[in-house]
């Protein structure tokens, strides 16, 4: 009877048996990607990936979006969940559940990808008797897992400043205390990883939709180098030009002819999106992701049905700082101005519990490019994918890197790229620029990429995030805006991890 003590699960599989079967690698890879989209194994909620936070809030895209957008001039939120208002007020603490949840999401990806990479080493694979074709596929999966891990670490570098725990596939899961790395070391690691996987990644736009290819890694490298001055104190603009050029030169990705189609329910058909986080109203359900971005942006006199959903959550609006970047807010001139102003006040006097202060931003919708509603008949969950990496950003990165003095490119080409975006926006050449400087690039980035999760990083790179040189409504918690301490360029290490891991030291200022 003592043998009866060796009970094994019936429906779950153990790690030993999972990796014995080549067919299981792809569902594991799918989880690595799904970790950015859904919040758990039940969908929309239940069996969450990370705990200690409301599951809907724990979505990677939702968290990332809040950290990158609510902290800036691009977005305010009317809700009062926990310390969410601290984000726009730039007054968060190490106890903030948002600071903690984003961090936990990042390390969730790191942990899951490490596990897969550990089980997919050449050594282990060779002992499992797979066919050459299976091995080729699994090596590509492994390279994509390393890509996702590099991207997660890049978010750690960008959001938390790089003085963060560092673990790789050589650290088996357990109860050990990871060591703290630093920005320079983490930067080098991300750089080397993204380069190392180049051979195993598929050529641009030859991989399945939803999976990373070489262009995705290059785009991420370009972004890493463009921000190198912030991350390490050393500019790497020439490298940024190199990798941006590589993406553009591959001629695999092309601009979506209609800007607004990039954010619609069938944006999976776009050739501009280099890497999406995919959602589906029936099969990939979450209360985070684009479901949050579509519902949360609807309120006031907006008719939710016009956006393909059943309701507005009356949450996010924007400040006049963004609206004023456009020649006019109606979108008649620059079609990228997707604002809803009927009954909305441009000036914000009240953020909390009031939707009508600040223009609404129905940029993301659950309507397809042909005008039909998304697949969920109830209108709860959204089909729209979140464009994590797209070509327009690569164009702008190229231009910026050149303007910042990177070699290997030229201003004339840079101008062509920027004007390509402006021509799409204006429908003709009337909006074309003739010169480029840092200010025009930052403005152009706001107009092109607003609400897509770039703004905080951009403002920091341009030195306008914390100090008083650039103010927006309620920056620092007062309506006129004020400068805040420069240490807020990064978020603190969450208090919960400082406790769990005595190897960690808090970032300066916190």
């Amino acid at each position, binding site marked *: 009877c*003592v043998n009866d*003590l060796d009970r094994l*699960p019936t*429906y*779950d*599989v153990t790690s030993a048996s999972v990796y014995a079967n080549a067919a*299981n690698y792809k*569902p*594991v890879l*799918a*989880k690595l*990607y*799904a970790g950015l989209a*859904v919040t758990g*194994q039940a*969908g929309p909620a239940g069996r969450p990936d*990370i705990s*200690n936070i409301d599951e809907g809030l724990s979505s990677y895209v939702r968290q990332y979006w809040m950290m990158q957008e609510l902290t800036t001039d691009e977005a305010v939120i*009317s*809700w*009062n*969940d926990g310390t969410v208002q*601290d984000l726009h007020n730039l007054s968060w*603490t190490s106890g*903030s559940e948002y600071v903690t949840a984003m961090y*936990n999401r990042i*390390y*969730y990806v790191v942990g*899951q990808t490490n*596990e*897969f990479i550990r089980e997919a080493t050449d050594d282990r694979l060779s002992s499992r008797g797979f066919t050459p074709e299976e091995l080729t596929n699994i090596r590509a999966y492994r390279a994509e897992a390393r890509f996702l891990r590099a991207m997660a670490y890049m978010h750690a570098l960008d959001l938390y400043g790089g003085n963060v*725990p560092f673990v790789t596939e050589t*650290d088996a*899961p357990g*109860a050990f*205390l*990871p060591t703290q790395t630093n920005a320079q070391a983490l930067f080098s690691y991300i750089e080397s990883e993204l380069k190392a996987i180049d051979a195993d990644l598929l050529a641009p736009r030859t991989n*399945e939709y*939803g999976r990373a290819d070489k262009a995705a890694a290059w785009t991420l490298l370009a972004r890493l180098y463009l921000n190198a001055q912030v991350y390490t104190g050393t500019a790497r603009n020439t490298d940024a030009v190199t990798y941006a050029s590589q993406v553009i030169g591959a001629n695999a990705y092309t601009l979506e002819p209609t800007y607004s189609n990039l954010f619609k329910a069938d944006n999976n058909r776009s050739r501009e999106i280099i890497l999406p986080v995919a959602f*589906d109203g*029936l*099969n*990939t*359900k*979450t209360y985070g992701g684009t479901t949050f971005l579509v519902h949360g942006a609807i309120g006031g*006199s907006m008719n*939710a049905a016009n956006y393909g959903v*059943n309701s*507005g*959550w*009356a949450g996010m609006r924007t400040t006049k700082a963004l609206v004023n970047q456009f020649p006019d807010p109606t979108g008649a001139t620059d079609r990228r101005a997707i604002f809803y102003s009927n009954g909305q006040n441009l000036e914000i006097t009240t953020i*909390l*519990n009031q*939707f*009508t202060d600040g223009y609404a931003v129905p940029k993301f919708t659950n309507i397809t490019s042909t005008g039909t509603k998304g697949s969920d008949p*109830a209108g*709860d969950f959204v089909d729209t994918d979140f464009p994590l990496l797209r070509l327009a950003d690569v164009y702008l990165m190229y231009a910026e890197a050149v303007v910042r003095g990177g070699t290997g490119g030229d201003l004339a080409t840079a101008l062509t790229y920027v004007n390509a975006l402006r021509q799409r926006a204006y429908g003709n050449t009337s909006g074309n620029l003739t010169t480029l400087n840092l200010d025009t690039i930052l403005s152009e980035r706001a107009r092109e990429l607003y609400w897509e999760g770039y703004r905080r990083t951009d403002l920091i790179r341009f030195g306008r995030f914390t100090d008083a040189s650039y103010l927006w409504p309620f920056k620092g918690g007062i309506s006129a805006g004020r400068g805040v301490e420069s240490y807020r360029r990064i978020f603190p290490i969450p208090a919960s991890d400082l*406790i*769990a891991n*005595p190897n960690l030291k808090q970032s300066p200022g916190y």
Partner: protein
Amino acid sequence: QGITVSGTVRETDGSALPGVTVQIQGTTRGAQTAVDGGYQLTNVPTSATLVFSFIGKTSQSVAVGNRSTVDVTLADDTKSLQEVVVVGYGSQRRQDVTGAIASISSNDFQKGNIVNPEQLLAGKLAGVSITPPSGQPGGGSQIRIRGGSSLNASNDPLYVIDGVPLDNNGVSGAANALSFINPQDIETFTVLKDASAAAIYGARAANGVILITTKKGRQGDQFHLNVNALGSLSVNSKLVPVLSADQFRDLVTNNTTLAATPEQKALLGTANTNWQKEIYRPAVSGQIDMSGTGSFKNVPYRVSLGYLNQNGVLKTSNFDRYSGAIGLSPKFFNNDLSVDINLKGTIIKNRFANQGAIGAAISFDPTQPVYQEGSPYGGFFEWVTRNADGTSVINTQATRNPVGLLMQTNDHNTVRRSFGNAVFNYRLPFLRDLRANLNLGYDLSSTTGQSVVPAAAAASFNQGGSITQYSQTRNNKTLEFYLNYVRDLKKISSRLDVTAGYSYQDFIRDEPSYASLRAEPRPVNGVLTDTVSAAGTPFRTQYTLLAFFGRVNYTFKDRYVLTATVREDATSRFAPNVRWGTFPSLAFAWNIKEESFLKNSKAFTLLKFRAGYGITGQQDLPTGLSDYPYLPRYTLSDLTAQYPLGGSYYRTLRAEGYDANIKWEQTEAINAGLDFGFFDGRLTGSLDLYQKNTSNLLATIPVPAGSNLTNQILTNVGNLTNKGVEFQITGTPYRREGVNLDLGFNITYNQNRITNLSKVPTPNDPGILVGTISGGTGNTVQIQTVGYPTNTFYLLRQVYNAQGQPVEGLYEDRNADGRITIDDRYRSYTANPKVLLGFTTQLTLRKLTASFVLRGNFGNYLYNNARSNNGAYRNFTNALGFLGNGVTNVLTTNFVNNQYFSDYYLENAGFLRLDNLNVAYDFGKIIANRYPLRASLTGQNLFVLTKYTGLDPEIAGGIDNNFYPRPRIVSLGVNLSF
């Protein structure tokens, strides 16, 4: 040819004594006395002698002679030397008991509308905290013995019924492990409180053990039928004070703080609806129980049938229970082999009311009507969003009509359970001191449940209604065997009682997964379909427990008793290298009364000192976790959490976080106690001091980021201490012929502290946030911190103005950083009561008996979430196109925004409750002058004295939100014997 003899058996105080065995000496024929103490025997030879016996009383033998009436009075067996106490794996003479054991038998149970067995105990025993269920029919109580010894894992005691330890993982759809037992079938409860008593149950005993024995037939009984019927009326006693419709209209129209927009004002209605009155009702419940006992040939039996129909005060809630039990206790081979067979079967049918209606009734706009002409939502008024083109759609963000929530939800289930066991107890003919005991038990249950919301219901109107289903089957098996050797060693004035045994238990749970359906099909991609999401992954889990145990009980000169136990336990839940655990105990008792200097004392009838030490364990995992926490597992995602790669959707495989070395939670406990009795046993009591240190707590804690596969895992971390004092005293201050007054009082003081919470020492560890409230998303108000009790409240200290009003948003800047932030929260008070108190009394005046139970908790606090979540002006208007009501408290605070973290909402929830008031009258033999009738009138929850401002101060967990109020209940019962 004999005569018919009848009579009445009374106690020395003159009150009737039911349940006394009356046997014709030398035969197997006999009878039991009925509730009025009466008995009747036919065909009694005049030469016969009748033997009257009852536990705790001195037996009497009376020669019949020519009398047709034989009345006797049975005196208390003051020495009680023969009294036997049920302990783990066997029984012991009361005098040999060394542990802290409390027991209570059917005579002392709470009375009235009792649904679940544990309600019989409430307020009766020191150290046993029973938080009665909410008003939900069939609800279960929360039971804590000497405080909770665990943080995340179960704090429920182990229940052992007729020798079979039950699975603590409850049956799906049932309140708790005991809810399948008809309280009427229970004879005694024995609570093993300290480690020395409980350690024989080793790894499952850390939270104490409750042994339950059910009623049995007795050898030689004549057939005896007992019928109990009870009818009850429950009424809701209190409502949350909210604004009336007129107050509400005035506020929205005129209040300048609220400053409602014209659009918001236009939403106001003209009705006057008290939503809370609309959702509650007076509820009538009834139960009828029949039991027959007797002896067929040589086989004593008891058969019982019960039916209970309980309606809740919240409309639509109902609980039906059909229960049956059969007990057979034959003896064979000159009584050397005794067999005890217990079979129980229960069918429960639940209809669960949608309890979301409770919160909705507080916050729903009182100016709106319940019903609205032409409403597509089943005729109910519901909030809609009107579009510019005049069409309207349901407003999915709005509060739903509370009455609609109730009437348009049919959430019901049926649970069938059968459990039972056969115990073979064999006294070896060649070694009379040795007996072998084999216990074979089973516990099977199946639950099927369904919740239907019609397509017209607003709650899922867009989806086309919903049908959700679930089911569960459980299959638990028990095999236990032990040998028991008892020997009196007269030469050395010693007595030895040795037990050694083996236990095997296996638990299987199966929960299939069902598709989530629409009540009415809707087009999906152009095809009408009724599936919202297909079935996910089914759940099946199994664990096995195995143990060897032993006990030695040694008594010297009837004065000094030593008990040592040990149990070697193994569980399949932990890895092979850590799954075995050893759980020893040692205890000592000194019967001081038996010493020469007290032996002849008239004042003392009992004086005994007890001391014990032991280690118990815990292997029950927090609910919802699988039984394989040490294994690296991959789980498959449901069909609604797939991920598309290249246009194909993949069900994903997720690596779960795990701790390969997870092991037992361990509780080390010491206990010292004194039992005493004075004045011929008229005053008895006991005093116990205890301390329990739990280490290797099974807790779900944040792990260092990057070190595992998720951010929190279940692991062994931290220590927790409970220490306390228990005092219990019962007395009979007045005793005359026919008049008797019994008083009982118990008080418990328990102090609970977390002494460590992390794997590595971290002096400034703020702790783990717990206690999620309603309001906002993921807001918590409690914290686990080293040096504080579990679930300590963690809030901001409210600052008040000169008028004593709370100032919105102004809190004490505890960390003096010049800003008021969430970091200024402080720790204070806890939901756990410091002091528990129970007071019982019973007065007998000839045929009238009156009793009450008064119960109180002190030092416990509650967070009034009903107020904090509905007590701000922002609750009345919003950006989402509907209005909401709030509590009248907002007029006092004038809060504009909800101040969830204000300690203004933390309230002292100490209370004194009149749990039970019972008056019974004995009508004697009324029908054909043969069948005795007894009637009783019971009031339950008649009043609560408390400072707490919410509905009820007694809410487990400390957060008062959406609480199904406990009704006031009046019951009328009759008992008839045949």
